[in-house]
C-alpha cells in the first residue's frame, strides 16, 4: 500500500511528498510516486482504505486524499514530435481545467504552453477515486502530482542532454520545450525523449521549482482550446463521427418516473427516415436517420402511460413537506432577543446548453461510448453491468461537455444510448430534447430554511440555521466516489457528510449550529454548482444583512467586524473599495454585498441593482474579489466567477422550475428563465488577490456570494424582505403540453 498507515502522515504526503518515477517506455514517460524515499516503482493497483472524515477540513481535502493514491497512475509523456502529453482524468465542461493543467505542466517543465496537450482520458478503472470531477477539486487534487511529474521529466531531459553534450547537467537550462547549453546549442525535448527514458538517476533536482519562479502559473492565459471553440471545430459528443450511427430520441412519460403501459408505433414506423422503435426502461426510443425525423416520429407514437412515483406531487405539497421537515431550533435561543427568518428556494434545472446526450456502439462482445462525464469509471461499470460485459470490454471516451453545473455527474444518456444500441444493433447517437432535459433532467433540490439569531448589546450570541431539502441524489456521480469512501462511516450517509464538510459560517456568531434534514421524494435531483452552499449560504448572507439592519450596523462594517479571518476581511475591504460601497444611488437602485468562503478560497461580491420596476430588476454593475490561495489562471478564474455571478442573478431573480403533478412546467429557455444578456450587468470588475499559499477551489465559489449580494441589493432597493426565490417566478406562460 502506498499510503502510510497513520492519518497525519497521509496528509503530509498529500501536501508535500509527491514525487515522480520513470515508467518503462521507449520515450520519456513519468508517473507519480508518493512519499519521500518510498519505493521507486509503482505498486500494483490496489484500492486504498480511506481515513476518517474527521481528518479533513473540507470536502476537497477528502477528495484530494482519496485521489492521491491513484495519482501514481497519472503519466506525462514527451513524444518524439516534441509534444508534451498529459491525459487528463477529469471532465472539461467549460471550467477550463484542461487549460489550467496544461499551464502547470508548461511551467514546471519549461515547455511552451502551445506544446502541451491535455486530452481527456478515457475511463481508466485503475484510477479509483481519481477520475471524478466535482467539489471544485480538480486543481486542488492535481496541482501536486502534475508538478511532480513535470519536474521529474525535466530533470531527466536535462540529464539526457548533459550526457549527449558531455557537459555538466547543472550548466544546462530549459526553456521553450528545449534544453539549452551555455554555448547556445539546443535540443528539443522530443529529440531527447528516448535518451531521457534510459536515464537511471537524474543529475539535477527532480523537485518542483519554488513557486516564486513560476512564470506560467499565475499569468492570465487564454483557453488552450479557444480557437476550436470559436471556429466550430471543437468536438462535443454528438459531433463525433461514428460511421453508421443513427439518431435516437426517447418518448418520456408525462410525469417523472412514469411507465409505459402500451405503445402503438404503427404510424411512427412508417415515417420518413425512421429505422426502429425500441422500448427501454425510461421510455420509448425512436431511431431515425436524423434527429428531426426521430423527433417527428416520436410525436406520432401513441403511448399509454402508467403513473410514476410522484404523479400526485406538486409544489404546494413539496413546500408543505419541507416546512414540516425542518429540524427544530434549540431551546437556548428563546432566552434572548432574537431575529427569525424563513426562506424558500425553488428547484433549479441544471440545463446545460448541451442537452443530455451520448453516442454508443454496442457489439456482441464489446461496447464503445462517447459522452461528457464527470464519473466515467462508474459509467463504464454501470454500462458493462447493464450489457452483461466485463468492464474492460466497455470503452468509455470522455468528450468535452457543453456545460455541466453538476449535471454530468450522471450519465443516464450514455446508459440509454447503450440500451438502444444493443436493442437496435446499430451505433446510436442519443439526444434528449430541451423539454426532456428540463423536465426529466436533474435539478437543484427545493429547500426551506429557518434561521434564528439571538443578540444582546449589539453582539450576535447564537446563530441557528435549519434546512429542509428535497433529497439530493448523490447515488451516482459524486456518490460513486463518496459512497465507496463513506462506506465505513455511520449513517445518515452522504448528504449529511457533504453538508458537514461544506457548510461553515464564516462569522463569529457565538454558538453556531447548522442542521439539515432531507425528504426522500422521487424527483430527479443532483448537486448543482456549489451544492448546499448555493441556498444555505445565500440565505445566511441575506440573514446577515437583516441582522446588521436590526443592530443598526452597515452591512459591510458588520461583516468586517464579525468575519473570522484576515483573509476574508481583506477580500471584503477590496470589494467595498473597488465597488465604491456606500456611494449614493437613485431611488429604486441599491447596492448589495455578500461574502463566501469554501474550498480554501474566499470571495466577496458587490452588486448594484436597478429595481425601479420590481418585476423587472436589472443588476447593472458587479464587483467581485476572490482569494483562491494560488490562482493558476486568473483569466479562467475570472470566467468562473463571472459564471457564478450570472447563476446568482438568475436563481435569485427569475430562474427556477415549478413542479406540477410530478413534472416541471418549464420546458425550454423561454420559461426556464436563465439570464440573458439584457439581465446581466454591462459593468463587471473582477479582481483576483495575489498568491499566498496553496491553490484553493474556484469553480463553484462565486455562486453563493453573488446570490446573496443580488438578494440583498434587491431588498435594499425595494425596501422589501424577499423570502422566496426566485423572486419573480409567476407561471405567466403556457406550459408545453405533456
Amino acid at each position, binding site marked *: 500500500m502506498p499510503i502510510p498507515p497513520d492519518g497525519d502522515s497521509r496528509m503530509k504526503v498529500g501536501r508535500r511528498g509527491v514525487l515522480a518515477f520513470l515508467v518503462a517506455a521507449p520515450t520519456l514517460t513519468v508517473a507519480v510516486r508518493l512519499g519521500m524515499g518510498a519505493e521507486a516503482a509503482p505498486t500494483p493497483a490496489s484500492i486504498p482504505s480511506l481515513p476518517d472524515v474527521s481528518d479533513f477540513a473540507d470536502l476537497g481535502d477528502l477528495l484530494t486524499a482519496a485521489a492521491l493514491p491513484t495519482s501514481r497512475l497519472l503519466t506525462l509523456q514527451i513524444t518524439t514530435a516534441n509534444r508534451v502529453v498529459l491525459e487528463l482524468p477529469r471532465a472539461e465542461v467549460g471550467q477550463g481545467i484542461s487549460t489550467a493543467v496544461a499551464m502547470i505542466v508548461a511551467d514546471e517543465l519549461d515547455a511552451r504552453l502551445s506544446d502541451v496537450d491535455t486530452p481527456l482520458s478515457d475511463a481508466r478503472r485503475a484510477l479509483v477515486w481519481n477520475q471524478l470531477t466535482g467539489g471544485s477539486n480538480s486543481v486542488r487534487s492535481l496541482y501536486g502530482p502534475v508538478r511532480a511529474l513535470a519536474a521529474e521529466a525535466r530533470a531527466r531531459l536535462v540529464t539526457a542532454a548533459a550526457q549527449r553534450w558531455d557537459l555538466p547537467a547543472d550548466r544546462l537550462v530549459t526553456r521553450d520545450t528545449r534544453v539549452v547549453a551555455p554555448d547556445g546549442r539546443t535540443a528539443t525535448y522530443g529529440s531527447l525523449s528516448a535518451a531521457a527514458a534510459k536515464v537511471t538517476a537524474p543529475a539535477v533536482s527532480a523537485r518542483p521549482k519554488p513557486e516564486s519562479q513560476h512564470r506560467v502559473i499565475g499569468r492570465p492565459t487564454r483557453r488552450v482550446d479557444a480557437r476550436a471553440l470559436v471556429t466550430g471545430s471543437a468536438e462535443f459528443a454528438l459531433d463525433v463521427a461514428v460511421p453508421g450511427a443513427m439518431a435516437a430520441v426517447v418518448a418520456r412519460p408525462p410525469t417523472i418516473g412514469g411507465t409505459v403501459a402500451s405503445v402503438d408505433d404503427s404510424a411512427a414506423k412508417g415515417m420518413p427516415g425512421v429505422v426502429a422503435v425500441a422500448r427501454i426502461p425510461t421510455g420509448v426510443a425512436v431511431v431515425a436517420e436524423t*434527429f*428531426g425525423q426521430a423527433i417527428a416520429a416520436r410525436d406520432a407514437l401513441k403511448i399509454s402511460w402508467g403513473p410514476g412515483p410522484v404523479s400526485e406531487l406538486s409544489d404546494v405539497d413539496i413546500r408543505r413537506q419541507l416546512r414540516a421537515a425542518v429540524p427544530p431550533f434549540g431551546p437556548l435561543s428563546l432566552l434572548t432577543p432574537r431575529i427569525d427568518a424563513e426562506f424558500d428556494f425553488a428547484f433549479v434545472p441544471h440545463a446545460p*446548453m448541451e442537452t443530455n446526450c451520448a453516442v454508443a456502439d454496442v457489439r456482441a462482445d464489446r461496447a464503445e461510448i462517447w459522452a461528457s462525464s464527470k464519473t466515467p469509471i462508474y459509467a463504464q461499470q454501470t454500462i458493462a453491468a447493464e450489457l452483461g460485459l466485463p468492464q474492460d470490454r466497455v470503452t468509455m471516451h470522455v468528450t468535452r461537455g457543453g456545460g455541466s453545473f453538476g449535471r454530468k455527474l450522471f450519465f443516464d444518456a450514455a446508459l440509454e444510448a447503450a440500451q438502444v444500441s444493443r436493442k437496435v444493433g446499430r451505433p446510436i447517437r442519443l439526444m434528449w430534447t430541451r423539454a426532456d432535459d428540463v423536465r426529466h433532467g436533474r435539478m437543484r433540490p427545493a429547500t426551506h430554511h429557518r434561521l434564528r439569531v439571538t443578540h444582546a448589546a449589539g453582539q450576535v450570541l447564537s446563530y441557528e440555521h435549519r434546512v429542509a431539502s428535497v433529497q439530493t441524489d448523490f447515488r451516482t456521480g459524486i456518490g460513486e466516489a463518496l459512497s465507496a469512501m463513506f462506506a465505513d462511516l455511520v449513517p445518515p450517509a452522504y448528504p449529511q457528510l457533504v453538508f458537514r464538510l461544506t457548510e461553515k459560517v464564516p462569522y463569529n456568531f457565538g454558538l453556531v449550529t447548522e442542521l439539515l434534514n432531507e425528504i426522500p421524494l422521487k424527483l430527479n435531483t443532483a448537486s448543482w454548482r456549489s451544492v448546499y452552499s448555493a441556498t444555505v449560504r445565500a440565505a445566511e448572507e441575506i440573514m446577515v444583512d437583516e441582522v446588521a439592519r436590526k443592530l443598526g450596523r452597515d452591512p459591510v462594517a458588520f461583516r468586517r467586524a464579525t468575519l473570522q479571518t484576515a483573509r476574508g476581511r481583506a477580500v471584503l475591504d477590496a470589494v467595498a473599495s473597488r465597488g465604491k460601497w456606500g456611494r449614493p444611488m437613485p431611488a429604486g437602485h441599491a447596492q448589495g454585498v455578500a461574502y463566501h468562503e469554501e474550498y480554501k478560497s474566499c470571495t466577496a461580491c458587490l452588486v448594484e441593482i436597478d429595481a425601479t420596476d420590481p418585476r423587472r430588476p436589472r443588476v447593472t454593475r458587479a464587483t467581485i474579489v476572490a482569494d483562491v490561495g494560488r490562482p493558476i489562471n486568473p483569466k479562467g478564474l475570472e470566467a468562473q466567477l463571472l459564471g457564478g455571478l450570472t447563476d446568482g442573478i*438568475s436563481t435569485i431573480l427569475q430562474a427556477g422550475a415549478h413542479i406540477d403533478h410530478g413534472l416541471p412546467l418549464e420546458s425550454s429557455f423561454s420559461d426556464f428563465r436563465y439570464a440573458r444578456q439584457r439581465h446581466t450587468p454591462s459593468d463587471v470588475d473582477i479582481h483576483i488577490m495575489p498568491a499566498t499559499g496553496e491553490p484553493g477551489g474556484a469553480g463553484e465559489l462565486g455562486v453563493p456570494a453573488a446570490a446573496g449580494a443580488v438578494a440583498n441589493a434587491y431588498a435594499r432597493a425595494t425596501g422589501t424582505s424577499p423570502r422566496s426565490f426566485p423572486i419573480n417566478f409567476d407561471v405567466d406562460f403556457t406550459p408545453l403540453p405533456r
Partner: protein
Amino acid sequence: MPRYSFTVNGKPVTVEAPADLALLWVLRDKLGITGPKYGCGVGVCRACTSHLDGAEIQPCVTPVADCAGREVTTIEGLADGDTLHPVQQAWLDEDVAQCGFCQPGQIMAAVALLRRTPNPTDEDIDKVENVCRCGTYFRIRQAIKKAAAH
C-alpha cells in the same frame, strides 16, 4: 423524397429530405456540419444561429425547403481560411468561451448584429437573445464592442 440544392459556406450541396426537415438536421446529420448546435429546437436559445443570405436565422426552426437556391453560412464558413473573422478574433482576445457550446451561435448573432448596427450601444447588445448557460455575457459584450471598434 424531394431534393434541395443550396450552398453551404460557399460550396454547392444537394440533399434529399422532407420539406419540413429543419435545416439544423440537414447540416448536422446529413452534411456533417456540426458547428451549429442544438439547444432547444424551438428557436429560443439560439445556439444554432447561422446565416441565410447573410441574415441571422435559427436553423432548428428553418425548414430545409426555405433554403433552396440560397446561401447558408455556418460558423465554419466565417473565417477566411486561417484568418479569423474579426468577431471570432475578438472572441479569442476576450477569452469569451467557457464550455463553448453556445458560442458558434453567439458569434453568428454578433456578426449579424454588427452588420445591422456597426457601432452597437449597450442597449443594442442587450437585444441579443442567445442564451449562454455558463453566463459569459459580460465577455460577449466586451468582444462585440471590440469587434465593432475593429
